[in-house]
């Protein structure tokens, strides 16, 4: 029992202090970086998207109930903050409880991976998601997406996306349609003629101020963190500067999306130009923050290109050719995660073959 609690005690102690642990084997000095640092950088990279998302929740609410545009920016943000905060509380409380519990069972130190997953989950669901659903989804994702495999580093799928997939398939009415993207208080009704659908669900139909600029800026309905491409690009800059996310995955994803989008344009199945696909829906958010998860993405450098292209291409394919789902990014990344080990296997096998031939030539 004492050992069980050790993980929890250690987690809080090492949160406050970098411990005075010294090297016992091998290299006597070690780099100052640890996983806490890497994970906190990802969280920092997510902060612009989160802050903007909170504001947008309030802003969309103002529009929806006919409050007009004059509302104070801080008032909007505060309204959205109060709406999103419970999502964060539930996400972290449920996820960290399971994480601490299973670390205790395994007798390992608590891995900081959930700091990022817990921050991501509220950003990829509609602000209206009922908290009990979110709690169930988080529990499912953390237990069956991560802990059963042995914790962070061992998982096959991105836990945050698994949580979203769980919600999407278990409670489709809470994650699709045109009502869920706008948070309302009980009793509030939409203004006349208003529809809160995301640009994707409307297939590019005329929407209030739904211009390319607003899509880029993010003043459109959508999941909390996904709407603002500017905020996401800020995060992308941090992740690329620090080298934590792979630029190959990001570039691959954009290339794949543009390629399929262009095919769609040529074939006439698409109603918006291919570049427009990049700034609507969850594409940008998924490409920057979720496809690049080092654990679930391809491990090899060549593999990262293939994996990125696959995700971008799959996302737009789902958008264009599947009438059931307006958005394809979630499924594309989960498919990409599933294919990543296979991609790596092919890359590594061909490397081994080449290497063997080279060695034989030298021998």
């Amino acid at each position, binding site marked *: 029992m004492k050992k069980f609690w050790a993980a929890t005690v250690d987690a809080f102690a090492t949160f406050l202090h970098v411990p005075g642990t010294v090297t016992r084997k091998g*290299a006597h000095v070690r780099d100052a970086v640890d996983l806490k640092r890497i994970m906190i950088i990802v969280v920092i990279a997510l902060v612009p998207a989160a802050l903007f998302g909170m504001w947008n929740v309030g802003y969309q609410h103002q529009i929806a109930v006919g409050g007009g545009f004059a509302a104070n920016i801080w008032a909007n943000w505060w309204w959205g903050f109060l709406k999103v905060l419970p999502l964060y509380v539930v996400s972290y409380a449920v996820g960290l409880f399971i994480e601490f519990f299973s670390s205790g069972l395994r007798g390992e130190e608590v891995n900081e991976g959930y700091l990022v997953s817990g921050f991501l989950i509220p950003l990829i669901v509609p602000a209206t998601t009922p908290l009990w659903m979110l709690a169930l989804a988080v529990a499912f994702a953390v237990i069956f997406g991560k802990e059963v495999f042995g914790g962070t580093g061992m998982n096959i799928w991105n836990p945050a996306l698994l949580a979203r997939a769980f919600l999407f398939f278990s409670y489709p009415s809470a994650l699709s349609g045109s009502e869920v993207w706008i948070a309302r208080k009980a009793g509030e009704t939409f203004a006349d003629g208003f529809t809160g659908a995301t640009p994707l669900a409307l297939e590019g139909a005329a929407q209030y101020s739904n211009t390319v600029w607003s899509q880029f800026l993010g003043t459109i309905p959508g999941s909390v963190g996904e709407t603002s491409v500017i905020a996401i690009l800020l995060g992308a800059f941090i992740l690329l500067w620090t080298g934590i996310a792979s630029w190959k995955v990001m570039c691959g994803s954009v290339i794949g999306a543009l390629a399929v989008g262009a095919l769609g344009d040529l074939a006439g199945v698409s109603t918006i130009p291919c570049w427009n696909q990049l700034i609507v829906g969850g594409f940008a958010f998924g490409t920057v923050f979720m496809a690049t998860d080092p654990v679930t993405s391809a491990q090899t450098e060549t593999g990262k290109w293939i994996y990125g292209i696959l995700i971008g291409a799959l996302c737009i394919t789902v958008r264009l050719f599947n009438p059931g789902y307006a958005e394809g990014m979630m499924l594309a990344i989960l498919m990409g995660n599933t294919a990543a080990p296979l991609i790596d296997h092919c890359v590594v096998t061909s490397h081994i073959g080449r290497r063997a031939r080279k060695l034989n030539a030298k021998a």
Partner: protein
Amino acid sequence: MLGKFEITPNNMSNKIVLTKGLDIPVIGEAELRVAKTVSPDTVTIRPSDFKGFVPRLLVREGDSVKCGSPVLADKRRPEVLVSSPVSGTVKEIVRGEKRKLLAVVIASDGRQDALDFGIKDPSSLEAGKIKEAILESGLWPFIIQRPYGIIANPEDRPKAIFISAFDTAPLAASPEFTLGDRIADLQKGIDALARLTDGGVHIGLNAASYAGTPFHKLENAVMHVFQGKHPAGNVGVQISHVCPVTKGTTVWTVSLMGLAAIGARFATGRYDVRRKVAVAGPAAIEPAYADTYPGAPMSSLAGFFGNTEGLRVVSGNILTGETVGRDGSLGFYDNCVTVLKEGTQPELLGWANPIRYKLFSTDHSYFSWLTPWRKYDMDTNLHGGPRAFVMSDAYYSKVLPMDIYPLYLFKACLAGDIDAMEKFGIYEVVPEDVALCEYIDPSKNDIQEIIANGIRLLLKEME
């Protein structure tokens, strides 16, 4: 590939540029002067220094020995001997649990009476006689084989023999300073080793010091010039770019220091392993060189670090050395002693501190990579806790200039999957080659140990 090299002196055509690697910017480099000549009262021979060697004791407490008298023999190959570096008497035989032999302590009489093995001219001897001459003098343990990094089997005929003439490890001893005056011995050593292989003796030189190094004058060897950061000076990295080790082939390696000792054995007929040792490190007082023997107690070097409280004394460099402490002794293969502070101080919210000006990190989540000219006072703090591998393969391969996928190799070793280990290149590496992967690992795994365990498993399977 080997066949096409002309074995000519000063073959400058083989310059190999390595872009991967890392020079750890730590303070405390030894000044190029011999600050102290130590004639130790005792020397300690530790069987654990010798890899792939099962010790059989050849002496008893009270026996008198000379320089070069055999002290240990390999149980499986009794011709492989370990000799006493000093003359004197066997003072103590230290045993541990189950009577495991831990150390043989020899009290020096200070006279350095040496056994005479006879002066020999290697260029007129055949391979068998050369092996015999090296074996009987107890210098054979200097010859290490790849794969596995263990003492070579004298019955083998290796594909080639490799010697790295520079050391890129942090705070390593300068070979020019320690051995630049022993060119004649080195040349004798090369002449001897050249008879033991058909692939020739290969010497790795540093492009940065190529013009100034005396070693490019050495003859009867193929010179390769390497440019790059650590581990460019590791002989394993050099081999992988010239003559990669595959299953079923063997190459031998000798340190430059070992080469000089082998050469001296032919030139003088004596066993002489005296060496200049760099005493370096952030906590060393006036870091400089000491002239001493392997097995010399660290207390004889106390002038370089004073009181050892809160300090770690390492025989070897900070990446691969062994913690020996003040009561320990200099390892057989080491010509460097590193002294650094134990990093037992917890650091309040350290991981969240945006700058951490006093710490070095290669990771761009800190900013020290923007000030590459700075050097740091490093201590032994782990800076984190052990985790599963999270970062992908490229994070590790940026400090491993070899054509392998390091993370796949580590995981194959962890899984004990011999088939996968072979495919991912276990024959090419020894723990020191992946020491930098261990240094930069944000998951704080003991990667050198992972590789060592993998190699141990391979050796066990072969038996």
